[in-house]
Structures are given as C-alpha cells and as structure tokens.
C-alpha cells in the first residue's frame, strides 16, 4: 500500500512537471511539418529569427501575419504580397504549398543584414525552388524583413487578333457497321533513340515525330530486354514528353528505369502510341534567350514569351541535349511556376547533371502548355 501511494505521488508530480515544462517551453518542432528544419524564434530579436517568422507565417498561409511583420508595407498591399507568393491566373504556384525553407546569412551589421532564403514549394508536378535575397533591418529592438516584391506585369488592355486554328474529331458511332470507316490514329515515328546509363540507372532517350497532318496525343513505352530476350522491365515516358503533338512537331522523351544497369540490357523495344485528339494550334510560345549555364550550377536557361492573347496557366519546358556528334545525351524538363501572360517573358531553368553538362554540344527546347480557358 505504501509503495502504491508513493508511485501515485511520483506519477502526479511528473505529470505536473511535464505540463509546466510544456507550457513554458512548447515543442516548436511540432507546430507544423514544413518548418521542422527551420530554427524558430518567438520574437524577432535577430535578423534570422525575423526571416524565420515571416517564412513560417507564409507556410501557414498567414498572409496577414507575414505582411504585418514586414518593414516595407508601404510599397505594396497585402493582396499584392499574397499574389507574389501564390501567383495568379491559376499558375502552378497557385496550387503549391511551402514545403520548407533554408536561410543563409550573406552579410550582417548591427542594424542591417542580408539573408538568402531558399523556399521549397511542393506542387502536383514535383517541387520547385524560389530563392529570395532578403534585406533585414533593425527597428528599435526588433528586426523586420524588407520583402523584395515581384510584381506581375500588367498587360495593357488590347485586342490581339488570332486566326484560330483547331481540329475537332467525330469518331465512329456505336450504331455504325463494323466495316464503317473510322478516323485513323495519327502516324508517328521514332526519329532517334539512345539508351544511356546515368547515375547507375538506365534512361532511354529519344525523339518522336508526328508525321501526320492531324494532332496526336502520344506516349512512348519502352521494354528493356536482356541478351537472352527476357524482359527486364517496362516503363513509359510519363511527363518527360510533350503529349500533344501538332503536325510535323517533334518531341523528346525520356524513360527512366530505376535499379537497372545498362550492362544488363541486351536490346530495347520501343512502342510509340498515338491517338487522334481535338487540339488547338494556339497559343504560340517563343523560347528566347536560351543559353547553357556552366558549372557549378549547370542548366539550360531562357525565357518563355507567349505570343498569343490567351493566358497560359501552366507551361512545361523540355530540353533535349546533344553531344558534338548530334547524339542525344540527355532530356530534362521544368515547369515554370508563373502563368504566361501575353507578351510577358517568364524565366525558366532546366537543371542539368554535372557530368552531362560538360558533354553538351547543342540543345533544343520545346514547350507544351495548359490553359484552363481552352476547356471552357
């Protein structure tokens, strides 16, 4: 009995102690999953804690709280601040969440500091990064962030004439005789194919041409065969391809085979498939200022310019990289996080593996687009 009372007293004491400790020093890492790696400071008593607080508020979608703690609120409104972070026109950014961030002090003085923040956003097509150099200034005993607003340019009201060109399809009906003629699938052709070993995995690279006069929805499936003819695995190009090809358009494709080494592969069986789909020849997107950035951050950079009057909500840029002999050596892609407004350049950057970047002789970029208004 005596020992039981002692145990109860011990449990009660421990419980009270834990409650008090939890109240005084809450487990900040548990406040949300996305900021687990960021250091937290309750008050902006340092430049880094000021940045942390703003970015945490952004992660919680607490636009009001984040905006309230900025030093340069007079330069832009809260909706403009929110639009800077969430994008507009239904872009990829509009549907992304802040997955985490890293901060790196660049310089600091008693009243002023420069901090580089790398924000990692998660979206339906993967993660993308947003790097901002933030100036932090001291105001009394507190630090405040000067937010470098990126205002989306406004397109002046205008009329852009478009000779609209599209294809509609009427398929064979269920009441038709089996011998009745149906619309035929577009003719597509593989014009290049090259398996490579990259990072211990096989990637099948290639290009596909729509040689027909109608638009095609295309996919490419590859099967790796061992030297004895046994199938090692089969995969498809998923999103490393432009799925809608207009007449005579060429798309690159990349099919990844994780956990397969090139030495195991005897041959590759490629199966392109196509279906006739309704499509539009617009919008026309120019890819300008394409250039290769060298090491240490190898990438293909450029700008997308929407030459049409229609807003493009999401764009997808795919780069094909060739060596000096014209052989395909890599295919990579990127989804710019901003919508493409008419005549407004939007930058893109397709990252390249370091070992590939040193071999690139020429390159080619293509873009595919998604516009919500196209389906209305």
């Amino acid at each position, binding site marked *: 009995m005596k020992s039981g009372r002692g145990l109860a007293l011990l449990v009660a004491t421990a419980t009270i102690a834990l409650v008090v400790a939890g109240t005084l020093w809450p487990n900040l890492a548990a406040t949300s999953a996305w900021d687990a790696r960021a250091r937290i400071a309750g008050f902006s008593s340092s430049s880094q804690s000021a940045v942390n607080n703003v970015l945490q508020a952004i992660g919680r979608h607490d636009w009001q709280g984040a905006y309230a703690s900025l030093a340069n609120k007079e330069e832009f409104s809260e909706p403009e601040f929110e639009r800077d972070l969430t994008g507009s026109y239904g872009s990829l950014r509009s549907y992304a969440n802040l997955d985490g961030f890293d901060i790196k002090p660049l310089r600091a003085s008693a009243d002023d500091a420069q901090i580089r923040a790398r924000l990692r956003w998660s979206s339906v097509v993967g993660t993308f990064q947003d790097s901002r150099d933030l100036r932090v200034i001291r105001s009394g005993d507190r630090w405040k962030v000067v937010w470098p607003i990126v205002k989306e340019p406004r397109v002046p009201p205008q009329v852009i004439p478009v000779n609209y060109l599209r294809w509609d399809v009427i398929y064979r009906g269920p009441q038709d005789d089996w011998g009745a*003629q149906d619309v035929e699938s577009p003719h597509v052709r593989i014009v290049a194919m090259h398996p490579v070993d990259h990072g211990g995995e096989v990637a099948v690279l290639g290009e596909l041409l729509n040689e027909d006069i109608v638009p095609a929805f295309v996919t490419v499936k590859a099967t790796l065969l061992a030297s004895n003819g046994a199938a090692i695995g089969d995969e498809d190009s998923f999103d490393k391809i432009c799925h809608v090809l207009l007449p005579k358009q060429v798309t690159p494709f990349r099919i990844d085979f994780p956990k397969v080494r090139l030495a195991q592969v005897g041959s590759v069986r490629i199966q392109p498939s196509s279906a006739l789909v309704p499509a539009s020849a617009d919008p026309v997107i120019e890819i300008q200022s394409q250039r290769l950035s060298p090491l240490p951050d190898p990438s293909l950079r450029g700008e997308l310019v929407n030459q049409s009057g229609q807003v493009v909500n999401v764009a997808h840029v795919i780069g094909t990289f060739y060596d000096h002999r014209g052989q395909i050596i890599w295919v990579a892609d990127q989804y710019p996080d901003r919508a493409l407004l008419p005549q407004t350049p939007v930058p893109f950057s397709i990252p390249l593996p370091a070992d590939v970047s040193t071999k690139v002789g020429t390159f080619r970029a293509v873009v595919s687009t998604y516009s919500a208004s196209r389906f209305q």
Partner: protein
Amino acid sequence: MKRGITFWPGLLAWLAITQFALAQSPEFRLPERVKAGSSFSAPTAGSGPAILYIAGPGGAFRRHVRLGETISFAAGEITRAGHYLAVLVVGSFAETKPFDVVAAQPAALSFLAKPSRVPVNQNDGISGVAYVFDVFHNIVLEPQQVSFVLSATSASPQSRTVSTGNGVAWIRMNSAAKAGPAQFEASLGNIRERRVVQQVAGEPCTVRLSAHESGPKIRLETEPVHDCSGNAVPDGTIVTFTETYGDNQATVDVPLKRGIAQTEMPARRGALISAAIGVVMGNEIRWNGGQ
C-alpha cells in the same frame, strides 16, 4: 455340310435383327445443302408419331411430326449458315442426318478502306478489303466478282475486279499525285459501298524563309510550303524558327496558317536564322540589320 449348317443360323439371326431394327428406326430424307432462309422439305417413311430435333449454329429446336408425312421448313425458318444435325426420334430409336445451310445470294458488302489519310504518290498505299454477306449476315463463301474503283477529281480512276476467296476480296491501289479526297468504291452487282480516302500532301520539298525588320524585332515569314508534287502542306503543320546568336538561341514553333508561317523574333545583328518542318530543313539567313 457341317460348315453350311453352322453358317445359316448365324445369317438368319443377323437378318432378323436387321429387319427388326429397320422396322423400328424412323426414316427421313434431307437435302445435303440448303440455302439460308429458303424453304425445304424432308419426306419421312413409316407411321406414327416422332420427334425431330435440329441443332446447328442458329440454335436447336424440336418439332413433333408424323412419320409418313413430309416435314416442311418455311422460308426464313433457318437463316444461319453452317453445319446442322437433324435427328428423328421414335421411342428409343433415332435416325441422324447432317446437312449444311449455305449463305443466300449476296446482299451486302462490308468494305474496309485503309488508311483514311494517305500521302500522295504512294505505290500500293491504299488497301481495300471487301467481305460479301447475304441478307442474313452470313458470309458468302462462293466466289463472287467484286469491283474496286478509286477515283479522284484530279486523276483518272483506277479500277480492278477481284474474285472473292472464302468470302473476302482485297486489293491495293496507288494514291494520286494531287492531294484531295478520293472516292473508293467496292461493288458487287447492285451492291455498292463507298469510302473516302483523304490524299494529303507529302513531306515539304523546301522551306523558304524571309526576314524583314519590324522595329526592334525581325518579322520572319515562310513562303507557301509545298510538297515535291506541288501540293500545299496543310495548315496547322508546325514550322520551327530558330535564331542563334553567340551562345544564345531562341526558338518558336509556329503553325502554318493560310499556307504560311510567320512570327517575330528579337533583331540581333549577326544572328543566324533558320526554319524547319519536322526533319526538313529550310534556308538560313544571317541577319545584318535588314541589309
């Protein structure tokens, strides 16, 4: 003698059994081949009630008949072609006769024409396959003469007659040199089936590009694009314009509209500009500020 004595009783017993069986087994006659949907009859011998079973591709049915009368099948009663069995049953005895139902007169053609789009000047580029059916959708296996005619407004018609084998006739024909729709017809007597084959332009023969100064930009325009037979390449075909300057490059994919593709790109002195359609390259222009 001894041998004869042992032989005759056996022969007599066999004859007795056979006569008994013949007396009990129902008898009837059927044509070996009948046309689907036609009327026919089966005379029977003997007397008394019997049951006739008929089983075949169209199913099975039973009919009560009287021996000694003729069993009649009305027109349209058996329409499925194939191999049938007729069984006439009296008590525990049955007589089985096989017969074939063959397709009636040709009444319909199923015509498969492929492809629905074909580039011009393709030898054996168009194929036609005709299946001959009767009015009951039975394939007509007896040889029939099917005529194929491919006609386009810009070319003299091609025609050929092909005999069917196992109900199928097929042919290959050439596409014309001029683009446009071709009427592809298969006929058998008064039965006609028509398909339309779109003959389309082939690969572009050349892509000619011109450039004009337009403020801070260059206005690029192709000449009307044709294949090597002079057919206009269809609108919507993608032309890729490429401008290379130093280490930089700009590209834009533009569809042909009203026969030409046009776009604007940044004007940069010394830039090399080219155009391509698919794997066909056009001419190159070195931009020297409009000179």
